């Protein structure tokens, strides 16, 4: 089973309204710049980790904005590797680097080796 957790890269903001007890929440993901407005009830389910109780559409949005991520992911490493892949694609637009680094080679490269390559 895949365990999930809330990403560390999010900001929560309560939208308090005068004389209204239950407030909505804004969740901002710094990883994707996605903003989501959820009700207090749903926010409680999200923070408590009851993801199976959430509506399917909301779950898709939480995954899309990377607000919820798999538990075993080390976020710093994940973001680093993703940025490297993104840069490889950008490089690929200008130079044909495919012959320099194949996917398997890229996997086997350590961070240091990759940095040297850049």
């Amino acid at each position: 089973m895949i365990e999930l957790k809330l990403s560390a890269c999010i900001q929560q903001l309560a939208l308090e309204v005068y004389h209204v007890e239950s407030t909505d929440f804004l969740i901002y993901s710094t990883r994707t710049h996605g903003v989501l407005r959820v009700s207090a009830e749903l926010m409680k389910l999200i923070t408590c980790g009851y993801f199976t109780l959430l509506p399917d559409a909301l779950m898709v949005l939480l995954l899309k904005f990377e607000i919820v991520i798999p538990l075993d992911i080390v976020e710093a490493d994940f973001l680093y590797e993703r940025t490297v892949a993104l840069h490889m694609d950008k490089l690929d637009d200008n130079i044909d680097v495919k012959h320099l680094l194949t996917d398997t080679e890229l996997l086997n490269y350590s961070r240091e080796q990759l940095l040297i390559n850049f």
Partner: protein
Amino acid sequence: MVTTVQNQPVFNVLLDKTLHSVLSPRHFLDYSVVTFHYGRALSLAKSGKIYLSGFYLREADRLLTQVLCPVTNQWILIYALPKKAFYFFQVQDYTTAGHLSEQAIHLCMQMQKSGYDFLFHAGIQQRFNLARVKLNSGMPQMGLEACSLCLVDLIRYVGVNAANPDNLELGIRNIYQVVIKTFNFLQKKAQEPESCFLLLSYFLKDTLSLPGTAQFSDDPRYVEMISFLHLFSFVIDRDFKLFRQTASRAFIHDEFLRKILQGYLGGPAITTASLTKL
């Protein structure tokens, strides 16, 4: 009535219904998480971001190993194999792409036998993907034959299951996709497009000459589709005389289909009025 929910494709609605009935909420969550990663890998591969797509694909593969329920695993594979095949197709690893498409076809057939009839359409799409791999790996004749077989099977299936509106809808949508995608693909990639067009036209006509094809269903969309295929085969043939003769009797109300024909003719937009004039 055709099954629709907020303009979602019929296939997705049927799949969603099935998954909710087969999987527990916990397993459905696993399915959502893994397929989301495969979906992202696919959209990145489509936009040409191969490295990023590969990154998400590896991440999805890693998550898939954590799903231990065999039923969930099988449903995830039905979703994931085509996505992986497309990634390898994009990186021009046609052997792996072909192998993955074959696996997907086999899985779809297996599930279809277990009573999930709507997966016939997913199987057809995989067969088309396999045909596309063959077209791209220097086997145009074999690829076009595979496309033609897809069309024949689709039309037969639509004919047999015409009473089921979901099947009719899915079948018609698939037929258009197979024809238009093959044509677009040949136009962009084929080394000898003219000979490929001739072959495609031959296969289209072969499909349309199947006994009883025109009478399988009297649904207006089916009739429209058959008219479109006839017209399209003439356009491919560059047989404008026959096109004009047939177009005058054609039954094409759909704006999008008219635009397709107009695009390939290179003339002014075809309207119902101009079709009558032709």
